[in-house]
């Protein structure tokens, strides 16, 4: 589904990401971990064609992302707050994204019903603009919007950060359900080793832009990761 071939990103003389070969098959739940500056967000930005690779390219479902834009029709993503439109209410934002993905108002209303418990009555009908919501609630809106339109690939950068414990648990459940559906390839990054090991089938550890570990999740994975990050 996703192939990164010889991809690297340099700023000046500084290499922030360098991956010789990475393949993510369809239906996999892929977790990216690493300390600050390891290159997680850079990888996602390259995947979403928001920055230009210095070398190599990424292929999404046979489409090279920096050459052809068709991958956008089946990819949902949330990287950070710059994905939100501050002066819209959450509903309007969902409708806007829905419209871009060919879903009308009624579709979106029906779609949103399944997230009632995550929204916890603080988001829908709150009559507030996104810019006036708390960081956590903004994040919820962004994550849910990434699911709109049945995307085949979903990219979430640190989905658990800033969320309250209840929502973290609910989100974990939600992501697991998504993974159970073998049609969807999910890519997340996280600083919470517990969460990623619980959700993902495969975990890749980045350090200074390079892949240092590539693990299939098993019962020992969490232990192994904790040992690795204990310096």
């Amino acid at each position, binding site marked *: 589904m996703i192939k990164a071939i010889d991809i690297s990103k340099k700023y000046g003389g500084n290499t922030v990401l360098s991956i010789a070969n990475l393949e993510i098959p369809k239906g996999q739940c892929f977790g990216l971990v690493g300390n600050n500056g390891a290159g997680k967000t850079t990888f996602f930005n390259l995947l*979403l*064609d*928001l*920055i*230009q690779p210095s070398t190599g390219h990424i292929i999404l479902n046979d489409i090279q992302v920096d050459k052809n834009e068709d991958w*956008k*029709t089946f*990819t949902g*993503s949330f*990287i*950070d707050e*710059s*994905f*939100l*439109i*501050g*002066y*819209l*209410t959450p*509903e*309007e934002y969902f*409708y*806007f*994204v829905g*419209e*871009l*993905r060919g879903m009308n*108002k009624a579709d979106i209303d029906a779609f949103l019903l399944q997230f009632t418990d995550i929204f916890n009555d603080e988001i829908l009908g709150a*009559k*507030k*603009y996104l810019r*006036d919501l708390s960081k956590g609630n903004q994040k919820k809106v962004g994550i849910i919007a990434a699911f709109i*339109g049945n995307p085949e690939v979903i990219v979430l950068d640190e989905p658990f950060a800033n969320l309250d414990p209840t929502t973290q648990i609910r989100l974990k459940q939600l992501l697991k359900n998504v993974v159970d559906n073998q049609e969807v390839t999910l890519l997340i990054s996280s600083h919470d080793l517990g969460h990623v090991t619980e959700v993902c089938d495969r975990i890749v550890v980045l350090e200074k832009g390079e892949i240092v570990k590539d693990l299939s999740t098993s019962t020992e994975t969490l232990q192994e990761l904790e040992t690795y990050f204990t310096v």
Partner: protein
Amino acid sequence: MITRFMSLEWKQFLRSSYWQKSIAINILMVFLGLYFITMFLALGVGLFPVLEKMYPDTDPFVQVNNFMFYWLLADLMMRFFLQKLPVMNVKPLLVLPLKKSKIVHYVLNKSASSFFNFLPLFAIVPFSLVLLFKDYQLVQVAVWACSMLVFTLIVNFLNFIIESKSSETEFAFLPIMLLVSGLLALNHFNVISFSGILADGINYIVATPWMVLVPVLLLVGVYWVNFKMLIGKLYIDGALKKGSKEVSTNDLAWTRKLGAIAPFLQLDLKLIWRNKRPRSTILMLVMSLFYGLIFYPNPTYQDMPAMLVFVGIFITGIFMINFGQFIPAWDSGYYNMLMSQNIKYKNYLDSKYKLMMASAVILFVLSIPYVYFGWDILLIHFAAMIYNIGVNTHVLLFGGSFNRKQIDLNKSAAFNYQGTGAVQWIIGFPLMALPILLFYISYKLINYEAGIATLIVLGVLGMVFHQKLMKVIVQCYKNKKYAMIAAFSQSN
């Protein structure tokens, strides 16, 4: 303690993103400042002889005091729109071991050192010198100058009281408008002659110098009110917070009829309506509709049709110039999201095009009353509208692909040069000067009608080749995508 505050202030000044603006804007700001200073200096020096000439019967000094009421009102109005109490940057100080009263005193005293308070000095001091030169008594002149300074400071603090009271209402500028026009009306119809009372007061103070205590006490009073108001609100959910109201939504269902561009058009309309900066653009637009009144009644311009073309382009194009030159920087806050979404650049830009087109038509319709000054003016407006729609829209969209400055939507537009770069200055030329030039050439070579026809033909050509032009423009945006994303995600 004060020295430490001062050093913070100095660093803020030196390190502010203000200086990282382009050189051109800094130079412009310096020129603006110098311009105002020169104007005030000229006023200070020239006022006495001018008044002597205009009102030979009255003492110019007394006459100045008669005008003082209007001066202070104008000062108040200007401050209301341009000056804000600098409270936002005390947030980090709140948790430090500092007395709140100290912070508030600091904020208030700092406001006293604003440019608005220094500006009048440039007029007051030379005027006082002229007075001395004309053999007025030193004590009187000194007392007068002091009380002017005190009055300026009173207006300074009064403005903050009005601002904080009116910021709670929906139309923040309404109270001050009502207050000022109310005072002016009462004065004008001689119900209460404020200008007379104020003039008598100042004359009395000058005659009996210890009475200067009255305005000083007044100043202490407004300062104290400000102090009380602020100290109670120095919480992050009080004065330091930007208001968040319950919002009403409108689904703008009528835009559906426009097909694929509907979602973007809705977004643009909400962008304009819900954010401070684009909204104040709309306010300026209403004011600039009256721009023609400066030119049309004046017979000297009637023989200069090129000048009238300028006014026509300006009036029917003011919205597209203000809005269009910052495409796509308006969307800079969420440009990443737009770029990773399933959108077509063409629809995105087309929506902006339609919006600018509609604005030109609406402004043309609104400017129809200018037909009072002659049919030829209506004709010029019509030609200017067609030219704006056909040519200037495309120029603006094309120029937008060079925009690299992000815009914070929540700052107001007056004197806000954020997002302004070299592009805006360069693009001004083809927007305004080119149509005037084209008109002028064909007007001189052939005749007036040919000039009008040139503009209309060019406009129509632009509309006919709209699709082709859009293709080129879209390609420009595509080529510059990464540069734009990188620039827009840099915060100031």
